[in-house]
């Protein structure tokens, strides 16, 4: 395999086969992620159905401003991620680096805003437990428990995404990618977009409950 193009692993015959395999692998992984979050969405559905009043009550305390800013940040980061992929596909290395940096920056902004939001949630005693805000029904704690776990797991995914993009950016700096080989950029892009897809649902389920 001395004349194999750079980036082709030995178990593949050609780049197309390798690309299709990793695309299929990534989507399989994303399917597992759908079901991973699915357990939370199912729990949410069951309890919202059972305790709609308590959920409406609890949902009034979610900070929609933070949530909306964060949604906008993530949607924009998806744009920059797509543009990074476009840059990689057309072999523009500087643009690739720039868009990757922008994507990571937007991701960090998201986490920053999320931190501020968490802080004000804590200040308002919205953490389930003995200190939980008085005056809310007991089942409101279920809503807030789900809020913390779901957004927490989502933030963790975003953190992983930022780390992955960091590695990709480092590889890009080293000149590992070209118009012919840039598969890792596309794969990490899929992951990044997916984390965004999950967030869109979180936004609808946790932030838009009973606003009016």
């Amino acid at each position: 395999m001395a004349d194999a193009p750079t980036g082709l692993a030995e178990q593949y015959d050609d780049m197309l086969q390798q690309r299709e395999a990793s695309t299929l692998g990534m989507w399989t992984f994303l399917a597992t992620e759908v079901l991973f979050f699915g357990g939370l969405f199912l729990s949410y559905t069951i309890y919202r159905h059972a305790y709609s009043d308590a959920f409406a009550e609890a949902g009034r305390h979610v900070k929609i401003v933070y949530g909306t800013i964060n949604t906008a940040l993530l949607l924009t980061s998806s744009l920059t991620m797509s543009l990074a992929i476009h840059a990689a596909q057309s072999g523009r290395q500087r643009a690739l680096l720039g868009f990757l940096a922008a994507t990571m920056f937007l991701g960090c902004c998201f986490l920053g805003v999320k931190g501020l939001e968490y802080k004000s949630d804590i200040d308002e005693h919205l953490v389930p437990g003995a200190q939980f805000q008085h005056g809310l029904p007991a089942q409101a704690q279920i809503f807030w428990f789900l809020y913390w776990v779901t957004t927490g797991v989502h933030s963790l995914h975003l953190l992983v995404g930022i780390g992955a993009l960091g590695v990709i950016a480092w590889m890009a700096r080293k000149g590992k990618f070209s118009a012919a080989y840039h598969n890792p950029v596309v794969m990490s892009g899929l992951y990044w977009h997916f984390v965004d897809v999950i967030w869109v649902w979180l936004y609808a389920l946790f932030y838009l409950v009973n606003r009016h």
Partner: protein
Amino acid sequence: MIRTEVQIVPRKTYVGVWVVLMLLLALNCGLAEVDLGPFNLVASLTIAFAQALLMLVYLMHARYETTLTRLFVAVGFIWLLIMFDLTLSDYLTRGGLPGTLRDSWKHGAWPTATHKMDSP
């Protein structure tokens, strides 16, 4: 071996999708402030669905992939439906037969067990 290369999606598609996504976000946020009764939930979930679909189809290139890959895109969501469907078949039919089923779990009528919450 020469096989077809990847189709590069033009940048204006990405930008266009982003504009639509942001508009949908504004719509979602705005609709939530209006009282539509039960349709608030329907509206917000429909918009979320539209946004997710746009991202899957254009940003994540589901549209440009092989049938096999598209099937794999769908499969996670189909399985989610199975999980929802059969679990709800339990929850939505509870309490149907008086005397044989309890629906008390909804109303917090559980026997209060001595709970170890306070112990570290």
